[in-house]
């Protein structure tokens, strides 16, 4: 899976939780999930669990806490789905 595909899937997962839909039109890797998109912080858990289901990964609390931007989410997913060497 490449970065762009992961980004697209992240967007699809987060979309239902976004309150600031205007900001959703210009999202990038630096877009902050809570501050810019208006996602309720309590819903971050739902988003992380959706990542787990979608990408078949396990995310611990510490890794979940580090996800602040869309780019953080993509980076975490890419790391966890990267084939082990």
């Amino acid at each position, binding site marked *: 899976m490449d970065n762009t595909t992961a980004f697209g899937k992240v967007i699809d997962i987060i979309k239902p939780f976004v309150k600031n839909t205007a900001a959703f039109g210009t999202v990038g890797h630096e877009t902050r999930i809570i501050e810019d998109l208006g996602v309720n*912080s309590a819903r*971050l858990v739902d988003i*992380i669990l959706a990542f787990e289901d979608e990408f078949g990964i396990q995310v611990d609390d510490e890794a979940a*806490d580090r996800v602040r931007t869309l780019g953080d989410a993509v980076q975490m997913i890419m790391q966890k789905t990267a084939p082990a060497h």
Partner: protein
Amino acid sequence: MLSRSERIALRVQEGVSHGLILLTYYSLEAWLRSRGYRIPDLRRVRREFETEMGPGPGPWLICANHLTLIDSLVIQWAMAPGWRLFLRRDRFAWNLPDRHNISRTWWLRVLGYIGKCVPVLRQGPPEEVRRTLEKAAFLLSGAQTVMIFPEGGRSRVGRVDRDQVTYGAGRLLLDVPGTQVLCVYARGVGQKDYGDYPRRGERFFIRAARLEAQTAMTGMRGARDLATQIVAKLSEMEAEYFEVVDR
């Protein structure tokens, strides 16, 4: 993991709070009464709390719906008289209020301290929320009572808002095995929507019910499952309330 100084600070706060509990409790009760607030059939309500909680030790996690800034005060008032809380200090519940609400004035900060409040920054960074939950878990592990509002704030829809449920209550239950859950539905009979304070002269409907929340899941999924069960119970209690009111 809490630092030693954080654990000591909580114990000191507990000690100060207990030392002042009669003054705090009866002053606040006088204030509540001065605004005309009443809990009809208060004795029966208190018996209900006693029956549901039993005489044994905690820890107890009280999970309540949330409509006004003074819900925790009203619930504590309903739970037991001040002298009883003096004798059973573990039943005087810790609260996790929004830091913005509790730090508006110096006297609110003092009241929050002696009222066993551990402020939480709503919508704050996850690590800060986690820190507050660690404090609550520490208190529960010492068989204390902690009151939490699983909706994460006052319901903007005036009813138990399942869409806003936070999973902190579930996480606490996972982190401190053996914690018992008491769901409390409290509502001023004239309370149509959320607000800062109930209208003057308000009468409160209050019900308490123990919940056997269980899950086979762990981590965030387990926390979500448990919190969902709690909010479902609160919704059920709310439905019972409106069934009676609408009759």
